[in-house]
């Protein structure tokens, strides 16, 4: 019994802890490392941009700049949501952008030990967007990597 316990402890010690901000889009729970989040803007109504690529959720005004937002919903091919949405202001290597989600939840601490890469049954598009998943006690949290969601990159990979 005790040997089993220390084995678990050792495993946990080797694993690093990551703080993730949980967000919900449709039925799925996503997580984004809080180190990449500049700010969370609640209940915003982005201004649509006609003729923009489909993943663009519109423009929002953020600290004197006009920020392009990426709609996770539209990116996943889900129907648009009525009413205000929350925006995570993310920082990537090529600048800031907004990520439009249904709602922002609490910050969860997860262990890298619970991480698993993308399962192979996901379709190709999702495999390209998701960065693996964390096994929580009673659900799964899909990890998102801001670099992969950056509008320029999406523009190149997703097409209009």
């Amino acid at each position, binding site marked *: 019994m005790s040997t089993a316990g220390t084995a678990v402890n050792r495993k946990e010690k080797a694993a690093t802890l990551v703080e993730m901000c949980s967000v919900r889009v449709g039925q799925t729970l996503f997580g984004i490392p809080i180190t990449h989040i500049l700010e969370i803007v609640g209940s915003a109504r982005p201004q649509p941009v006609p*003729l923009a690529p489909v993943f663009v959720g519109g423009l929002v005004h953020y600290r004197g700049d006009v*920020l392009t937002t990426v709609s996770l919903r539209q990116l996943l091919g889900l129907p648009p949501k009525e009413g205000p949405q929350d925006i995570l202001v993310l920082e990537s290597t090529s600048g800031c952008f907004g990520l439009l989600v249904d709602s922002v939840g609490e910050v969860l601490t997860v262990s890298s030990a619970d991480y698993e890469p993308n399962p192979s049954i996901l379709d190709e598009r999702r495999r390209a967007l998701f960065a693996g998943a964390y096994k929580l006690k009673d659900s799964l949290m899909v990890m998102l990597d801001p670099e992969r969601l950056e509008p320029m990159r999406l523009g190149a990979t997703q097409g209009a």
Partner: protein
Amino acid sequence: MVLDELTREFLIESQEGLDRMERCLTDLEERPHDTALLAEIFRAVHTIKGTTGFLGFKRLEKLAHAGENLLGLLREDKLSADGPIITSLLRLLDGLRSILKTIEAESSEGNGDDAVLIRRLEELQAPKSAQAKEHARVRAGAHQPAAAPAGSGAISAVATSPTATPPTAPSEHPLSAPTPATQAQEPAASPDLKAPAEAEGDAAKPRSQGAGSAAESTLRVDVEVLNRMMNLVGELVLTRNQVLQATSTDPTMTMLSRRLDMVTADLRESVMKARMQPVSNVFGKIPRIVRDLSQSLGRRVRLQMEGQDTELDKSLLEAIKDPLTHAVRNSLDHGIEPPSVRQAAGKDPEGTLKLRAVQEGSHVVIEVSDDGAGMAVEKIRQKAIERGVITPERAAHLPERELLQLVFLPGFSTAAAVTNVSGRGVGMDVVRTNVEKIGGKVELDSRAGKGTTLRLRIPLTLAIIPALIVRSVNQSFALPQGALSELVHIPPEQAAAAIEWIEDAPLYRLRGKLLPLVFLDRLLMPEVKHKVASERDSFIAVLDADGRRFGLVVDGLADPEEIVVKPLSAVLKGIGLYSGATVLGNAELALILDPGSIALRAGVAMSAEEDRARAAEGERKAEASESLEYLLVEVAGRQAAVPLADVLRIEQLPVSRIEYIGYRPVLNFEGHLLPVEDSGGVLAAAESNPEAQIVVVVCREGNRHVGIAVSHVLDVAAGGKLFEAGTSQLTEGVTLLKDRVTGVVDLGGVPPLPVQAPAPSEWNQMEEAAR
């Protein structure tokens, strides 16, 4: 390359010193004995020499030292600054600059060879041995032969172009040479006498002394920081607007929010002011360009510059540098004729190039004018036909002013031969593109034999532009005012008649001419079915973008606003229709439409190309051919005609806006005073009712603007010629309009305003022309 703080500061300071030196050198040519100028030049070179010794840049030090020796002699009046000396000093300047540039890029001096230049600088010092009485004659003889053997490029250019800069300085010299003592005693010279004292001091010191008082009251700020400040102020303005709205009902907050309002406005103004720089920063480079060009082209040119302290946003100043240089090159190459030609034409052999900057409202107007040959309209006509820009039929009928505008088309050049300086056909279109890129406009005026004036209208700041807010697809969009020429409202019941179609191309008849229309909603949301024009109000914004004229149909108009331009992310820029975004006063975001791209996207062609297509279809407007177009107006029951080419705009306003100076009616229009001609008694008739609306047609007359008071504007029509019975001579002041004999309003007959009146700039110009 990472430079240490000291070196960087040295580079910036030296650059500034050299800029000053460049300005002084060209001035020195006119006033070779101006001790203040000489001292300034000496100081620039000396500072560089002193500091390089300290920083260990040997090559730079050697070159600066050679220059300093020569300048020392000039300053002590042992030599006089004549053409060859100034040319060499300019070479020295270029040499120093290029070394500084190398240091900036590679943090070392590079290993170029300055021996030729140094030797040349030393040779020029030669006559210092010959002092006393023979002084003048020996030197005048010694210079000219010395120039040839030295053999460096620029110097031989001087020697081989006999027309350039006749040696005025040496010829004056016998007068000034015997009196060096009196010059030195002049009071103006006394502050400069301190300079040599500094010069003899230790090498490291003068730099800090030179920085002196200016450094205490000014500060160098990174432009990035200013940009950021501008952004934040924009943000503050927006927050203020929201605070004002939120607190409007709370009396205790009103005072506070009003104060916030005021402070914000002041802050915005100060930040904008911090970004302003005088145009002299750009003008300062011009004398050198003019000097070099006039030498290599064999022209004699006098340069006049006015309004150098007019201020413009830093980024805009950068943007006009190239167009301005281009315009100056053009004037020298194509405008001002060689002295012999000028003399033959009975003109002063020395041409005049005038640069003028003046602020007009929210714009700065920069004029480049010369008194050269002007543009040969016939040549342009021929060239246009040759290049196939326009059909011969069309060309024959195009009025002069429109023909002139053709030079702005890409690949159009009228130079008889391709010269080194200009004439490769990438001229005016580049000027126009660059100026339009920053929201400015270019106008061209030219009279054969009299000269050419190029006018650049530049907005004061780039970050804030006036825009009209339009509505379409339930969103607001900002349309830059610069491209907007007029607005047309079409109520739903008239839509069917007003908008005509050829297949699926919508067109509108604007004063008899077909204007292609672009429906913004269909363009932006092609997949959605939109309401047709007969179900809603439509507004046509008539736009002129890069020579493409079209009407943009929108659902609604809001007030014009001064908008703060925010850049878009690359993904959205890629769409190509938007040039940026902005936050409106009501905190709504609006995309800024780019009229040029919309025209391209919708396939609107340049008007010249359109002409060609039209002529090809054999659709010619024969009636309009031989004649000018006139604006037909009604003045107190009678009809009169105003030449359409002279009409600037038409204003409808209450008669109470008209004020009087003595008996003369005037209109104060945005701070500019406009004389109003009322020969028809329209004002007097409307006087009884101050609410009555009158119409003022604002016209161009020479360089000034005049207003004509009329009752109504009726139409635009082509006027026919009338001949006197018997003599068959062409009549003047009258034309045949719509088969009726109609008097033409004599714009020149409108007497000028008294000069003491609060004069708008046009008046100053008139006055100068008269002098």
